[in-house]
């Protein structure tokens, strides 16, 4: 092994100056192997760990594992959904000895994670997004996801009480089912306060595109919208832009209140610490890890940011009451009679879809009251 290492280094020395400098470095200092832990768990993020959003939510979950005896955490950020993520997983397995990997971005699943599952049958992979299907996918793969639409409904309740103009705004990445459910939930939460409220949505087309997010937020505020929320990977730009223009904001993914302490009302946050601890506890106990895991507010998979200083007493009351009802279980955001904003009936009188309803996962409409179009 050592011989091969030396040989390949010599070959490279001939062609690469970096090789020359690095070779000197490695000749005089031994490689550190600080991984004596019982198990190494790898986390892979598509964006920066401190994005105040999707990736930060996962990184906070990973950080919650750091005290657990015998568990060592390795993390890599800004990994694109290409062959890079496959190599990152391999590198975590080969060089760090990872036995459980969480590739957290939706686009990592197919084909990247599945390719690694086939290649490393002894390593466990759990993916955020809920795509795992026992008929199609291997048993060392799995999915976990949270019903965060409920959180957006609660955001809507507070927004509905706070808005003076009765016009809300939503900056969204792409018109896909998960995002549409969040937009619809936000508006329906607000309409539970005042049925005349409308919500203007702007799709930026990308998960992370700061310039367009800022333009969209400004455009919303220009129209007289006074509460804004979003579903993009990093809500930082939306929150700062909206608050800078004097609008209130509801957060998403993580807690953005440090960015706008006065204007931040509340936010729908992931609580991945709960989920990751669950998996790692099973790992430590030697139990098989679940393949398909989902939960909502009641299960602690999703949580709300603490209410901000601008939230009125009436808003707080309804927020608490709705949250209590949701925690009991069986709460339905989408319930009849309900029409889409194109006039189609999406739920008839008496029809209700609980958060677990499979129909919600192929949502392709915006409800009445949302101003905007899915195409």
């Amino acid at each position: 092994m050592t011989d091969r290492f030396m040989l390949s280094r010599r070959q490279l020395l001939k062609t690469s100056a970096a090789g020359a400098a690095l070779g000197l470095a490695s000749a005089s200092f031994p490689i550190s192997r600080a991984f004596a832990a019982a198990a190494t768990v790898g986390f892979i993020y598509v964006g920066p760990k401190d994005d105040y959003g999707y990736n930060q939510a996962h990184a906070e979950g990973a950080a919650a594992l750091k005290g657990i005896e015998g568990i060592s955490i390795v993390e890599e950020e800004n990994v694109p959904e290409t062959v890079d993520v496959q190599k990152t997983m391999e590198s975590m397995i080969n060089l760090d000895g990872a036995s459980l990997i969480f590739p957290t971005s939706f686009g990592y699943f197919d084909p990247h994670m599945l390719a690694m599952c086939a290649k490393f049958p002894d390593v466990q992979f759990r993916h955020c997004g809920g795509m795992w299907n026992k008929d199609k996918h291997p048993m060392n793969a799995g999915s976990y996801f949270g019903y965060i639409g409920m959180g957006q409904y609660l955001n809507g309740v507070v927004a509905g009480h706070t808005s003076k103009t009765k016009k809300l705004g939503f900056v969204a990445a792409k018109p896909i089912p998960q995002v549409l459910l969040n937009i619809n939930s936000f508006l329906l939460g607000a309409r539970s306060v005042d049925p005349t409220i409308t919500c203007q949505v702007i799709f930026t087309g990308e998960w992370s595109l700061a310039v367009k997010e800022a333009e969209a937020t400004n455009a919303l505020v220009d129209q007289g919208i006074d509460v804004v929320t979003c579903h993009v990977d990093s809500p930082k730009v939306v929150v700062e832009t909206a608050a800078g223009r004097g609008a209130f904001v509801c957060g998403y993914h993580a807690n953005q209140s440090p960015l706008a302490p006065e204007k931040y009302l509340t936010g729908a946050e992931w609580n991945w610490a709960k989920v990751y601890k669950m998996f790692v506890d099973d790992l430590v106990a030697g139990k098989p890890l679940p393949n398909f895991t989902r939960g909502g507010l009641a299960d602690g998979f999703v949580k709300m940011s603490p209410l901000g200083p601008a939230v009125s007493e009436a808003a707080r009351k309804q927020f608490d009451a709705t949250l209590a009802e949701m925690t009991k279980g069986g709460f339905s955001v989408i319930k009849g009679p309900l029409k889409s904003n194109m006039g189609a009936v999406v739920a008839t009188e008496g029809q209700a879809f609980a958060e677990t309803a499979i129909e919600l996962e192929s949502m392709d409409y915006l409800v009445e009251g949302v101003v905007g179009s899915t195409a």
Partner: protein
Amino acid sequence: MTDTVAGAGVPATFGARGYPAALEWIARRAEAFVIPLAALVVGMALFSLFILAVGKSPVQLYETMWRGGFGSWFSIQNSLSRSSPLLLAALCVALPARLGLVVIGGEGAIVLGGVAAAAIGVVLSGAPSFIVILAMGVAGMIAGGIWIGAVGALRHYRAVNETISSLLMAYIAIALMNQLVEGPLRDPASLNKPSTHPLADVYRIGNIPGMEVHWGLAVGVLACVLSWVLIEKTRWGFAARIAGGNVRAAQVQGLAVGSLIVGFTGLAGAFTGLAGMLEVAAVQGSANASLAAGYGYTGILVAFLARHNPLAIIPVAFLLGGIDASGGLIQRRMDLPDATVLVLQGMLFIVILFSETFYGRFKAFNPDLWQRSS
């Protein structure tokens, strides 16, 4: 080779004065290696200062980089696999550069090449795999070729700045891809990640035997070699270099500058479109937003570091692939952010651009000057 040197006007006594011909031969070529390597070392030394400033050990950093990018067969394959799209993406910059054009919109050719390939792959589904893969390659090359060729045509016929137009057209290409992938070409089953219909396994491109790197690497190396032959060994390449040196002189000589510009930009785009096709056929299995992974932009860095020499692109792409591969290990072992390797890339880029000013300034590399001063 000594004939060439003597023919270039060197006094006949030169060889007799004690400089072996071999030494001259080496000296004339050493410049192209010594200056970039020295720049690389200076860049790494500057980066060491940066690492010291953030309180980490540069020695540990370079040791980790070596281990993550080059230190084992696994790491080398990791680097090679990351470098393979960069080979083709860099040609999008390097080929037009020989005509004096700065084209930076390769990303557009990659995404459209990928979409075109995925669309053809789905349309021809059921046909023999050889034909389908060939058709996908051709479709990717045509899409990329038209896109970047249009940049060249705008430059030549309408005097539109090619740097700006290629960048803006890359944005248009990405928007077009999103429109197609989320609209007419969408597989309805791809709910939360809009994609084209997946390619059947028989239409996928596998790995090079004995390696865990897909065939795109071999295609990229071949494309670089062919580009080098085109530029250095053919009359078109010669004409392109003339036009790149002085476009008026080229026109006076009767060279078809317009055809050269459109041809070279089109070829550059075709190679880069092929990179998109390879991403679809070898990696993704369908076209979706993951195609816009930034290879087109890293390709700019590779081409400039290689001084637009297609052969030099090969080692430079490997070096950057290695830096990229080691970036992960640096994050995991040293708790440094991902931006660390971007800082290194930026420093290397600036130092190497700066080093351009040193060419022709060192007597050691120019045997013609040895006699006069000694």
